[in-house]
């Protein structure tokens, strides 16, 4: 079945909208009237560092998938293919901007200085997210689809009330980013967040990684219009960017974040990308999509194009690439070792943080559990 667009009957569908693209899949830098200025300061060093982020993000991801296959993690949602969207947007952030991620933002976490081991701990099942959300300004992963967009909007309303927008002071003005996916755009919470942000003019950037798939459901199950165009109906700008182009993602995010910091309100960024892996390690995409589609997107790989650009323009030499490979190997080795060494939590620790102070009922239940577990102590010794 061919799904018609809302614009008209079959056969008269409008052409796909233009993407903001600064780096072609072949690694050609293409000029852009609006966005060139936003990355005019980005020099060879910055390109190399973003390339480093891309490579390390992918390596963390592939290591985590391997650890899951070895039984060390319960689950892992791969970011494969979305590295540029995440690194480009995250590198547009300033230190005091605040991020509300989904559960797939491993590349953003890396850029925010969160130890990937903490991400592994969550998916290993030893905790539910224990990184320093205040210091890193990277909130806990949110599993319920779209719920965090409201948290981001509320946080942005708090930023407004603190007078931390529109002062012109780069150390004070603050933006908030809500990450979410194409599937989330169908959620009520996301639409409510759009409304709240719009009517309060909150300093929030809605960064949608449209990776084309919500588990098995393709984009046309979620929308009949390009996602970025929805912003217009809510009363703020929307832009579609090549989500596999780290430079374009950086430029578009910088513009949107600065608008927020300046008190000009929200922006919806649709990063047009592709989930090259499964939804999670529990998923089997061969049941619902064709290999040909994946092959098509492999040609648009977000990392290869940067490498081609760097090589072509002598931005990095072989030593750089070799060093980076060694760094990635070292990181992977550390994660592998430390992940396996993560201790299981004490069973009675589940009672510790239900409330700020434990209630009498929880104290009683903790004692009950402890007594029950202690009743096996003799048998442990006997073995």
């Amino acid at each position, binding site marked *: 079945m061919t799904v018609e667009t809302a614009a008209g009957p079959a056969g008269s569908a409008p052409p796909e909208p233009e993407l903001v693209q600064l780096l072609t899949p072949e690694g050609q830098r293409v000029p852009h009237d609006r966005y060139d200025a936003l990355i005019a300061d980005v020099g060879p060093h910055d390109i190399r560092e973003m390339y480093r982020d891309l490579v390390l993000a992918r390596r963390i991801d592939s290591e985590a998938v391997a650890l899951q296959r070895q039984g060390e993690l319960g689950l892992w949602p791969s970011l494969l293919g979305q590295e540029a969207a995440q690194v480009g947007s995250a590198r547009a952030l300033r230190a005091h901007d605040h991020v509300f991620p989904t559960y797939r933002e491993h590349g953003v976490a890396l850029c925010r200085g969160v130890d990937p081991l903490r991400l592994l701990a969550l998916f290993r099942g030893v905790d539910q997210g224990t990184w320093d959300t205040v210091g890193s300004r990277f909130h806990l992963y949110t599993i319920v689809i779209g719920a965090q967009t*409201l*948290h981001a909007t509320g*946080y942005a309303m*708090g930023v407004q009330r603190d007078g931390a927008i529109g002062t012109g002071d780069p150390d004070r003005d603050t933006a908030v980013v809500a990450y979410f996916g194409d599937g989330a755009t169908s959620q009520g919470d996301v639409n409510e967040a759009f409304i709240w942000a719009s009517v309060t003019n909150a300093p929030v950037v809605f960064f949608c990684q449209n990776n084309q798939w919500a588990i098995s459901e393709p984009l046309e199950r979620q929308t009949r219009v390009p996602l970025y165009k929805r912003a217009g109906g809510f009363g703020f700008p929307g832009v579609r960017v090549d989500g596999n182009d780290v430079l374009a993602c950086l430029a578009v995010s910088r513009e949107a974040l600065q608008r927020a910091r300046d008190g000009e309100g929200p922006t919806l960024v649709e990063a047009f990308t592709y989930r090259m892996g499964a939804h999670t390690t529990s998923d089997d995409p061969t049941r619902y999509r064709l290999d040909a589609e994946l092959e098509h997107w492999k040609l648009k790989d977000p990392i290869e194009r940067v490498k081609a650009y760097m090589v072509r323009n002598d931005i990095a030499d072989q030593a750089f690439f070799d060093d980076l490979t060694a760094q990635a190997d070292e990181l992977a080795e550390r994660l592998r070792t430390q992940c396996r060494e993560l201790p299981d939590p004490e069973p009675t620790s589940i009672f510790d*943080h239900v409330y700020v102070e434990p209630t009498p009922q929880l104290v009683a239940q903790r004692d009950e559990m402890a007594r029950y577990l202690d009743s096996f102590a003799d048998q442990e010794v006997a073995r």
Partner: protein
Amino acid sequence: MSVESMTLVKAINSGLRRAMEGDDHVLVMGEDVGKLGGVFRVTDGLQKDFGDARVIDTPLAESGIIGTAVGLALRGYRPVCEIQFDGFVFPGYDQIVSQVAKMHFRSGGRLRLPIVIRIPYGGSIGAVEHHSESPEAYFAHTPGLKVVTCSNPADAYWMIQQAVTADDPVVFFEPKRRYYEKGDVDLDSADSVPPLESARVAAPGTDVTVAAYGPMVKTCLEAAAAAADEGRSLEVVDLRSLSPLDLTPVVESVRRTGRLVVVHEAQRTLGIGAEVAARVTEECFYSLEAPVQRVTGYDTPYPSARVEEEYLPDLDRVLDAVDRTFAF
């Protein structure tokens, strides 16, 4: 000592005002809470005095109210959210149960959400569907939330302030049928106010223990007065806190009386009364002279207004249950 007679609405309003004066990070947010002062006027005058940045008329979407309150709390604010009516809390239920209740737990204690969610609840006001419900058990069943309810203006005044200063999220149920009933409030008794999470004896007695909360406390006090005329002494306990559930005075009382009647408007099955009955059976098994009796709404959706008085517990049904405890 400054004692004033005021309605329960005025008591919450005054408590909120005092909380907002005491901490400029306290916000009030909800539908129609600003200029209108709320459909019940609980927030009357607050926006005029504290401004629209602190008393926020929100878009009409409950998930949005709770979800943005989460973000505001993460930024250091103390939002007090108003849900306009009990039956309208469910669009916000996911945010309350999945996000608000769990944030402190899942963050290993690093993140606190000092949010108050005010919900006018209960029936007997002749309303249409979704305006008379008692959904407290859904929330009391959720670890991470504190669930409290006031039965009179004095408790309302202090409990709302305690809820605002609490560092855990609190769902604050307000008995809307008692909104415009007056009671004395001692505005200077801060030092003698009991903890938010405590039950208290509302009327001492010796023959039967009656545990109730919110709108049913007054009904039970009236039942106690009627029973006294017949020579029977009821001890009425106002539970006040449904999560954590403080059964200390109930257990102490049942050990003396041997009989317990639990009363609430909410439907019976798996309600607060079921939990009270189970725990009292655990704690007072050898003291009980009769099975714990429950006087509740029936296990139907909340009925049409013209039959709601037959659905709701009243004085006679409470006394009928008291009689049943003497039939064993």
